[in-house]
């Protein structure tokens, strides 16, 4: 009974901590070709998220670029290659660099993924899913504890995009995400496009899947576009956001105490002006549900 009470008490404590995080509004995943236009249109972008792994060991030019951006925007560092799901443990030297960058940026939170990008000598360009097992939950817990000892700034974790399901699974993805966030004491970076793309692997109903997530932990939402290939949606981040993703985004914002929404765009970058309407639409959804003014 004490265990249950402790867990409930801890959950309340974490939810309160997350509720005190600032409401950032609607931002953009920063890509260098956007820089000049961003500086001219600051009022239309509430914050920037950076692909933070690229700024470790930064050259002086990149440090200056970050300083310039930080003068004009709140910066949220988003990591992919710390690899919190690696069973071989965290790379301590890499963690030190991550900690130094987070400390220098002093953001309201930082983010990583519920997956792994490093295994042996291979580094993946995108986080791979973990097996939905107790062993994998234990690996995430151990690595999260190590990371949080090094970095006191709140950590939020993102659900990954993949239809790949390991054999020998002991729970489904929704239960797995609940377990990891529970033992890790972290917020959720909910990628609604990943949910949309993964839908075929969990029965095809992302809205029902969303209902089973710990929505009180959602701090930030990622959304992006993609394209159809061979009858399935590919989260390529290279096109406009499809209507199904907008619907999921609205459902999530209506139900979760979202502090920020971030648009990711990679390939096929248009001029900034051509994506700003997507930020404005997301901002209006947030306003409609009173997440910000």
């Amino acid at each position: 009974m004490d265990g249950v009470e402790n867990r409930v008490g801890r959950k309340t404590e974490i939810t309160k901590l997350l509720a005190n995080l600032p409401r950032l509004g609607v931002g953009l995943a920063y890509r260098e070709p956007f820089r000049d236009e961003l500086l001219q249109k600051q009022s239309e972008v509430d914050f920037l998220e950076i692909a933070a792994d690229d700024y470790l060991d930064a050259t002086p030019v990149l440090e200056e670029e970050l300083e310039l951006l930080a003068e004009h925007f709140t910066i949220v560092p988003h990591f992919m290659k710390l690899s919190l799901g690696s069973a071989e443990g965290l790379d301590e030297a890499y963690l030190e660099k991550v900690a130094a960058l987070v400390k220098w940026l002093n953001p309201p939170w930082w983010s990583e993924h519920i997956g792994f990008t490093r295994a042996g000598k291979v580094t993946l360009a995108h986080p791979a899913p973990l097996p939905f097992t107790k062993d994998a939950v234990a690996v995430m817990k151990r690595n999260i504890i190590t990371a949080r000892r090094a970095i006191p700034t709140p950590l939020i974790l993102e659900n990954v995009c993949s239809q790949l399901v390991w054999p020998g699974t002991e729970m489904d993805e929704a239960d797995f995400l609940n377990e990891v966030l529970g033992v890790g004491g972290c917020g959720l970076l909910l990628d609604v496009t990943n949910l949309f793309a993964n839908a075929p692997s969990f029965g095809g109903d992302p809205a029902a899947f969303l209902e089973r997530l710990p929505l009180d932990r959602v701090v930030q939402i990622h959304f992006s576009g993609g394209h159809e290939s061979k009858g399935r949606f590919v989260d390529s981040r290279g096109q406009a956001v499809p209507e199904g993703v907008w619907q999921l985004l609205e459902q999530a914002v209506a139900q979760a105490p979202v502090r920020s929404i971030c648009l990711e765009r990679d390939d096929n970058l248009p001029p900034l002006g051509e994506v700003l309407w997507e930020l404005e639409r997301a901002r209006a959804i947030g306003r409609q549900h009173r997440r910000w003014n």
Partner: protein
Amino acid sequence: MELAQQQKLVARLCTNREFREEFFANPAQVAAREGLTVGAEGLAELHHEHLRQFARLLRTRRLGSVGVALPLTRRVLGNRFVECFKLYALRPPPPGVERVVVDAIGFVDFLCGQVGAEVFDPAWSVSLARYEAARLEAVWLGRRLVVRWLPHRIGPLLVQLAKGKVEAGSFNRPTLAIWWRGTERGRPHHWLV
């Protein structure tokens, strides 16, 4: 510990098509050779098509990042950039590929060395690709001196690309592109001669 071994195997399966085909042809033998003593039978049940889809997603992510690192080359080559990247991604990744800029520089080397002139239409796009790759070396990798001899007039091209439209013309006049910094921590100076 077993999970660590399994992750190594899955990471290789996702990034190496030959290894993936070899594994699914004979999972027990390949797993034993890779030192996986337990769980190989389970991994053999990995959905082959899902694994292939994930491998494609990894390639799509690399393509997206490399396209952002080489924005003008991406724009000018359009779909040829995408098709060539698919060929490039079949090869073993260059050392240090975890850094996007290293991947982008490796891709330009591949375009110039393996693919050849037919991809570069208009002809000046070869100079553009080499210019963007050299800039990555100077700015992101912090090289103190980067020098490139380019067969086209890159300066006017950059100006016109920034305006969104390149006027017809050959741009056939060589350019020497130089980035130099006096100290390790200094700011690079850049000249087009």
